[in-house]
């Protein structure tokens, strides 16, 4: 359901000179990467010394096909095992790695999650729009498992320049009824005749287009930029807190 890399095709298409991938390919590759590779390479791709998958830094591979071949056959004599992927599956993992390389890498590091939580709850006032484990507002994206969906660099960018990339599932809908009433909410689903939203009062509402005078999909201005509002260390703390939100599973 989540399509966090939808926007990346536009920004990193130029790096895919050897192969063409769709947004779905990149998503599939991300899923395979998270399920099979992070145990050694880490979510950020820099878990093995000398290799930084998210920054196109490899030891042996020169191009996409080299990387795909290594993913499939492993490297004898090293900890890199062979994997039972098809050629195409291996290439989707490459596509994913290229896509995260193209995304802005985190400029902050070394943040403290506990201090970050205090900023989330206090100075950042994040819960006025976001929700974690059932606490907070539903206006903006739910962040309960955001650390499993986004890398630190993406989160940092979303906080500083939130309008740069708004994934489709976070778009808002704004409509005016024939009677002149305004309806706004998170755009959930639509068809030719109707639009489904989670409205400003947290109600699931299906709106018939025939009752609307006008409507628009809003992508910008939904979240304020925190540029200049947080110090770099505060930003690092906040990002490290968000990265720590991996799962709602109780241990």
């Amino acid at each position: 359901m989540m399509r966090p890399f939808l926007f990346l095709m536009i920004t990193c298409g130029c790096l895919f000179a050897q192969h063409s991938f769709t947004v779905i390919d990149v998503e599939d590759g991300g899923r395979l990467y998270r399920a099979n590779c992070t145990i050694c390479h880490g979510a950020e791709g820099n878990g093995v010394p000398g290799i930084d998958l998210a920054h196109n830094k490899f030891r042996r591979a020169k191009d996409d096909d080299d990387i795909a071949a290594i993913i499939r056959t492993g490297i004898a004599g090293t900890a890199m095992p062979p994997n039972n992927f098809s050629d195409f599956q291996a290439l989707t993992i490459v596509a994913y790695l290229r896509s995260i390389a193209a995304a802005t890498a985190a400029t902050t590091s070394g943040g403290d999650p506990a201090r970050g939580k205090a900023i989330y709850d206090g100075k950042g006032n994040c819960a006025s729009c976001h929700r974690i484990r059932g606490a907070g507002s539903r206006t903006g994206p739910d962040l309960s498992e955001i650390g499993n969906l986004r890398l630190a660099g993406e989160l940092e960018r979303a906080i500083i320049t939130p309008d740069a990339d708004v994934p489709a599932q976070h778009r808002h809908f704004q409509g005016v009824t024939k009677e002149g009433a305004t309806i706004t909410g998170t755009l959930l689903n639509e068809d030719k005749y109707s639009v489904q939203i989670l409205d400003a009062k947290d109600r699931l509402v299906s709106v018939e287009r025939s009752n609307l005078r006008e409507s628009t999909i809003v992508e910008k201005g939904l979240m304020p930029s925190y540029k200049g509002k947080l110090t770099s260390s505060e930003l690092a703390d906040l990002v490290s807190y968000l990265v720590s939100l991996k799962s709602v599973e109780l241990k």
Partner: protein
Amino acid sequence: MKSRWLLLLLAASGAWGQVTFDRILEANKEPQNWLTYSGTEMSQRHSLLTQITPANVKDLELQWVFQAHSLEKFEATPLVVNGILYTVQAPNDVVAIDAVTGRVFWVYEYAPSPDSHVCCGRVNRGLAILGDTLFMGTIDGHLLAIDARSGKPIWNVTVANAAAGYSLMHAPLVVKDKVIVGAAGGEFGIRGFLAAYDARTGKQAWKFYTIPGPGEPGNETWAGDSWMHGGASIWVTGSYDPKLNLTYWGVGNPGPDWNSDVRAGSNLYSDCVVALDADTGKLKWYFQFSPHDDFDYDSVQVPVLADMEWKGKMRRVMLWANRNGFYYVLDRTTGEFLQGKPFSKVTWTTGLDDSGHPVRIASANPTREGTLVYPGVQGATNWFSPSYSPHTGLFYIPAWDNYSSVFSKLPAEYVEGRRYTAGAPRSPVASLRGPQVINRTEEEGYGAVRAFDPKTGVRKWEFKMADVTSAGILTTASDLLFTGGREGYFWVLDARTGQELWRANVGGDVASGAMTYAVNGRQYVSISAGSSLFTYALRRNQ
């Protein structure tokens, strides 16, 4: 159109309150909603909506269809809260749907662990709701809390170990501030249990093993260490009596299913109904329908609670048509056996004694060569929801009759994560997924809806089908009965006479209970078939 839409907004703005437990307890006061698996915590699957009547039912018309992204069939009964329908797309995706148009608001996708083991389909029987939170058990043994408005997860707790064959199949039951679930997996040698979790935090509040451990009363009913892998699953949702503060659950078969040599004894609390204190999980009473069962006659029925005059005085009773072929009435305060009669062909017992215990026929046991026994392995009924209508005073059950199996037994050896059934029953009727063509005689087994006078056990009428049925039954206060079957029909019957009033071909196995709701004063009926959910209402401009 304009006014309808305005009405919708007005209705929504006034009624978006939280689903409190008081609302669930008094669900009959808002029959436009369907707040718990069986409609109310009395589990009568009876609705007070009366817009659809015997006179106008011919004007039912399909409003929308939801096709699940799943090859598994729907076994879930949806919930409806203020015009939003919530259901589970097998195995464990939660879906929120506009109950008027069928348009999807959101899908919460859950990928169960590859370790999950299920005997009888990667399916789910539904959700519970409390406040703004939905609760779902998963086939890999987790209980999830999900925000009903956004579809985002709130907590996820491991209830049982999927790798050892435990799974959660049924819709959880909310009692006060707790969510109650029980483990399935009796075909994999689990030790069954029920457990309650704090709805807000996911913290376990109590746990009741359906097989007592060493030192606990009842452990002596299991030979040796057979209690460790004796099954006694929970497959369907229980009920709750607020006055007694008791929650009632049907318990599954003992394992290994068909070779009982390793588990001498009555095997408590397999094939029982257990009455537990809802706050502590302590056992108040139990009644065992089939002691030392070796036919897989799980007591996996929804406990139907009713208050009725019994021999001159009002009694709090429980109505129960069991997989073993008998219909029972119990006093639900004490568990006292009040009545029991066979409702289909039975050859494993000569009947029930005065305390309700079956008198076994010595030769009717699984053998190496195979023994023919009625009812067959799926039972004379199964997990399919019955209905009780206080309006007609009748109890309605989905029944299989003339249905037999040849029960063979095999050696039993427990290996974690593997099937532990030790037998191979065979029958002219397919157990779970019927073929697309049938060519049986009535003598080889058929399905029916049967209506009983609960006080006498006398059958009032029967609606026969050519094939068998896994469909639950819904009745309404306008004396309609809604059901289906493997033949792929959605039937509406006269609840007083059993006469067919209307039918629709829904083209697939109806394997869940129909439910009804209303939005903006218009009554709808939803019924699943295969992996699709069909919703009907009366044609407009009546």
